[in-house]
Structure formats: C-alpha cells, structure tokens
C-alpha cells in the first residue's frame, strides 16, 4: 500500500457506519475498493497495545495517470486517533450521512466539529443518502440549521449507488474550493 502521508492527491469519504461510504467509494472508483488494514498503537490501561484498523481505500486515475487516492474514514469512536493520519493533506472531505437517521443533526454537527478540530479548514461537503427511503423527505432542516450557525456549504441529497450523482458530490467539493 502507498504511504498514506505522501504528497498524494487525497479525498476522504467520512461518515457513520451504514451511511453509504463504501458504496460511494465503489461508485466513484474505476476498480473495486479494498478494505485495507493499518496498524495502530493505542494507549490502553497504561500499556501500549497494537491493534489493526480496517478502512476502505481506492484509487481513481486522473487524466495523465496520476492517481487520486480515496479513503473511507471509519466512524468508530475508538479509532478517532487515526483520523489525523487519514485527513492529513486531504484536499477535501465528503461527509456522507444517512438522511433517515433520527440523529442526523447531531451526527452532522459531531462530524463537522471533529473534522474541524483535527484538520482545521478542510473543505467539507455533505452528502445525504437514503432520502429515497423517506416517506416525507425533508431536504432542508439540516441545511437551514447549519446556515443559522453561519455554515454555508453544499448539503446535497444523493444516491451513493448512482455514479453521476456521486461524481456530482465531488464536483461540489471542487467548486467550493476553486
């Protein structure tokens, strides 16, 4: 596996379990994403123990053959200390959230705060999945609440299984940093 902290072009797909990260990465990728493992030291009971953490990884080839590396940022709390490694040098984060999750608002705020704390200033776009499963889709509350906090960023509802829509999320990210 390539060195995660090299000067590679890096895009991070973040979000809680089940939101649609792996699906998004698969949809964006030319090839099947791999679930890769990374050794992690974690302080536990005063001892240093080593554990491995699994996360999604895939590549997309840019025009001249330069690879874009796409990483899935796993949501489990206990792996938070690996976030800084994954987020290091990423040009942006696509935060994938399940629109049908009752805790959508808290999840969103928690993730945004964590990303801002660990990698301040990283551009973020929010992709809401599974709006097709909602009987009464509310496409606005989350966006309006963020705007009230002065956060004006793309909040798009998309289907992680749809290639054109997943691509459009990356466009939104690029447009917002251009």
């Amino acid at each position: 596996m390539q060195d995660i902290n090299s000067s590679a072009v890096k895009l991070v797909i973040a979000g809680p379990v089940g939101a649609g990260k792996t699906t998004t990465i698969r949809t964006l990728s030319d090839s099947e994403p791999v679930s890769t493992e990374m050794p992690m030291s974690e302080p536990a009971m005063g001892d240093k123990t080593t554990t491995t953490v699994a996360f999604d990884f895939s590549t997309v080839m840019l025009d001249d053959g330069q690879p874009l590396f796409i990483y899935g940022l796993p949501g489990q709390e206990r792996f938070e200390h690996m976030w800084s490694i994954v987020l290091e040098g990423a040009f942006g984060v696509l935060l994938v959230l399940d629109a049908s999750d009752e805790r959508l608002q808290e999840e969103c705020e928690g993730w945004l705060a964590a990303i801002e704390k660990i990698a301040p200033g990283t551009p973020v776009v929010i992709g809401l999945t599974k709006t097709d499963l909602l009987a009464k889709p509310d496409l606005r509350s989350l966006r309006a609440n963020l705007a009230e906090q002065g956060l004006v960023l793309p909040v798009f509802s998309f289907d992680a299984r749809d290639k054109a829509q997943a691509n459009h999320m990356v466009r939104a990210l690029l447009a917002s940093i251009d």
Partner: protein
Amino acid sequence: MNVDIRVAVAGDELQKRLRLAAGLLQAHKIEGSLRPWDGTRCDCAIVAADDLYGERIQDYARRKQIPVLAITRANDRFDPDTATIGEHAPLNVYVRALLNLLKAEAEPAEPAQATAASVTSRTPGIIVLAQALSRPSSDLVMALDGVELGICPSTGTIRAASSEVMLQARQLLGQPGWQLREASGGALANGHSESLDIFMIRAGIHHGEALPMFPLEGSRMKCWPDLGAAPDLIEPLRVASLLAKGHRDLQKVAGLTGIEPVQASGILWGFQAAGLIVPDQQKMPSPHPKTASNDRLPAAGLFQKLAARFGLFQKAS
C-alpha cells in the same frame, strides 16, 4: 358539476393534453370526463378544425346546440369568437378554452383564500414566487387557471397533481397571471412531489432569456441549492459556488462560469424562487470565511486534472 366531453381528434400528445386539461377542471369544481365522439348527447365536443370529419361534427353539433372546440394547427392561441384553439397551446390555455366553452367562470377554486395573494398581472410566475420566497414563507399554492403547484419551502419540495402537470407548469412559469395563496392544510398532499430547488432552477434556465436581469447586488445566497439529484446541473453548481464566495456582480458571475449573463440571471431567478436568495440587509450571521488553507488546496494543475476527471467544467448539453 359533471360534464361530458366528447373527442374526435387523433394524436397521443393531443389526447394527453386534453385529458390533463379536463382533469384540471377540478380546480373549478368541474368533473370532466373525456370520451370518444359517438354522436350522442354531450356537454361539449372537441374536433379537428382542419378535417372533413371535424367539419361534419361541427355542423351536426351546431344543429343540436352542443358547444364545439375546434383544434387548429394555424396558431397556439385560443380564439373565443371562433372557439378554435391552437394544437400546441399551453395547458392552461386549454383549461381556459374548456371553461369558456362550458360557460364556467375562470375563477380560482377558493377565492376566499386568495387574500394572501400577490396577483401581479404582468409579472411572470417565477418572479412572483421569487419575490414571495425572498422572505420566510409558509406553504403556498400557485395557480394559473387550473394548473396548480404546491410549494413547501420548509421541506424543500414542490407538488402537483401529476408529473405531467408539473412539467407543464414549469413551462408556464414564464407567463404572467399566476395567483399565489397560502396553502390550506393538505393541499396537493397526494400528488407528485419533487425537489423545489431543482424544479425552480430548471424553470429559471428555461425562461431565463424572457426574464429581466436578476438584481444580484443587494442579495445574498442563504443556502446552497441541493443539486445532488441533478448531476446535469453543473453551471448552477458553479454559480452557487461563486455566490458562496461573496460574488455580487452578475456579469462577473456569468463570465467566471463561462455562460451568458441571461443564463446566469435565469439560474439566479431559479435560486430565488426556491427561497435560496435573500436580501442582504437582512442581517444573518455572515458565513465563516473558511480559514484560508492554501496549503490544502491542490496545486492549480492538479485542480484542473481533478476538475476534468469529475466534469466540473463540462458544458451542460
């Protein structure tokens, strides 16, 4: 009131339009049923103006005092004096023609509700709505003759009786005469529903050239439009990104997006009709300018490569 309408014209498109128009008579408390002409008693007949069969039915109907609407290829209008209508006249004109023929008043179904209306006779529908939604608004119904749209700004959805009516309505939003009223509970609750943002942006693009230039100075984008389900809308994405960065000059926004100012203007009318643009005086917390993190930005060449790979500068077809 039930009315029995008999049809003696061919063509799937035309039949469909007549069915839609008959359905929209409901807004005027008329249940219209469409059946093929068979020479028996009916409330009105629809025939082709330019064929012999149509002429024969017209003669017969005149003797029996059955009102007849004749469909012509000559124009796209309705002429009440000759009771002819252009085949490709918009849906609302068909509704108006049927009402005229049936001697029914072309009144909104619930005139008492029309108090909240801003009935601005010459203003295109999309601008009437844009003005209403530049302030916080409850749910609205906008109607042109029988064509009705339910606007729900709180959930970001728009409703109509069916997807066909929705499409027709989009084509009519450049026209004046729309009436706006507050929605009474459950208006259009069972119809077809779409994203308000995407619907209005498409309407704005469709009618952009016919609308006045959007007054962008003094306005501010409150939220990004939700374009997730419309990956073909690339230029609106770029226009939104420029507004988010604080651009207020329409010419400049158009230039940076690589489109004509009228197109940018149409997109902006769409944004405002979806409630995304507010007057700037309204003191909302200004967006955090993301702490400049130029070290994070991909180098220019790299950005171009990413943009090319994901189609950011691709022209909408």
